[in-house]
């Protein structure tokens, strides 16, 4: 079955305040940002009869701006806007690379960061970057505002910890403690464009003057029901020199934090091997 336009009701708030009020007044309404996830479902006839809360008129949630503490991205900022922003390119390059890996130009022109997060796919390509930058998700409802650390935002496959009536308003990125020595974004899909990731990685590495690891942050998507920081690997590497031996041991610890599966796109074994290769190449530099 197809989507039936006549069966839909559309609410069009003009401000954040109005969006929050409408969301509270109409429980079960479906927020709509760029529609690149939602419209696929609708075209398959799965959302007929629903009430849509079209957020595209909420100008306050569009902005990408620099703050004293870092970067603030409105939930409605598109992947293209992030990709092309000079400040983001300079200070948060992994976010730029991730945004440029979402679908292709047409998807980046419509799809938003807020929509990517709220959709909570295990394969969301921006998530490893958000995890290593330790993003904070600002959410708002009629009851007020709260901030959820990105690491606590997802509840499972396609599930978030948003309460009913809550909307994502902004995503905050604190400046990293200093410039990382090495950084990495890597997406592995069947082809370069329009492919859902088999595995997707982001990493930041700081080394001390003696070449020992001061801090490592490494995250993987598509390797578990939700994006994962490799806490065991990160802890293990701290204070060590990144020799071949240490790197091999670090790679062996990967499976403590991920649990890849076999599915239509890939196998658990392939996913783990490729992710380990990406981590090894990153650590060895």
């Amino acid at each position, binding site marked *: 079955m197809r*989507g039936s336009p006549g069966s839909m009701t559309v609410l069009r708030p003009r401000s954040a305040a109005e969006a929050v009020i409408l969301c509270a007044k109409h429980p079960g309404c479906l927020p709509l940002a760029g529609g690149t996830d939602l419209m696929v479902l609708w*075209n398959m006839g799965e959302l007929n009869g629903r009430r*849509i809360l079209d957020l*595209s008129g909420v100008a306050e949630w569009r902005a990408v701006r620099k703050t004293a503490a870092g970067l603030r991205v409105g939930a409605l900022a598109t992947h293209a806007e992030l990709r092309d922003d000079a400040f983001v390119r300079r200070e948060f390059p992994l976010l730029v690379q991730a945004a440029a890996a979402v679908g*292709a130009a*047409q998807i980046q022109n419509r799809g938003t960061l807020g929509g990517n997060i709220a959709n909570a796919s295990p394969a969301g390509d921006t998530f490893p970057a958000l995890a290593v930058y330790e993003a904070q998700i600002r959410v708002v409802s009629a009851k007020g505002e709260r901030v959820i650390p990105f690491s606590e935002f997802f509840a499972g496959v396609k599930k978030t910890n948003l309460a009913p009536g809550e909307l994502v308003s902004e995503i905050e990125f604190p400046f990293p403690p200093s410039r990382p020595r090495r950084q990495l974004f890597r997406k592995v899909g069947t082809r370069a464009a*329009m492919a859902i990731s088999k595995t997707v990685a982001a990493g930041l590495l700081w080394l001390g003057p003696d070449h020992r690891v001061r801090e490592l942050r490494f995250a993987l998507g598509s390797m578990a029901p939700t994006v994962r920081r490799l806490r065991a690997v990160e802890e293990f590497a701290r204070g060590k020199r990144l020799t071949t031996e240490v790197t091999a041991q670090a790679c062996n610890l990967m499976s403590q934090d991920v649990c890849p599966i076999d599915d239509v796109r890939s196998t658990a074994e392939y996913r783990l091997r490729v992710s380990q290769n990406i981590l090894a190449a990153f650590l060895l530099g």
Partner: protein
Amino acid sequence: MISFTVNGRKRAYKGPPFKRLIDVLREDFGLTGTKEGCGEGECGACTVLVDRKPVTSCLVPVCQMEGRRIETVESLGREQRLGPLQSSFLEHGGAQCGFCTPGVLMTASVLPKSTAGDPLAIRRALSGHLCRCTGYQTIVESVAKAPRPKPRSRKR
């Protein structure tokens, strides 16, 4: 009522607000140049420009088009008077069955200057389009060899 422009012409749409842009263009305005391939955002056949940016019109509900500037393949030329990009596709075999062509043309029509004549950059820019016929090589050639509008002289 939702108001926007299509190919430079003011339009007022009065139907259901959740109708897809592709269906509004084809059914309400008779602009059947825009094609539907997959209906899932994957193939790029339905690509049109919204405020000069390529988007897949099968994923756009018309309620989001208030005040926007929409351009379809019909804006590039007429049957007897093709635009330079269209002529280049004709000359270099960039179209076979032609189903993907309107979408490809729209994305190609706004390629940044930096991609001019650079096959790799053209391929990257067109990566959101699938073609079942050409094998892409002739599409890339057609785009690379299309005469570009001359940059306007800064003086005077």
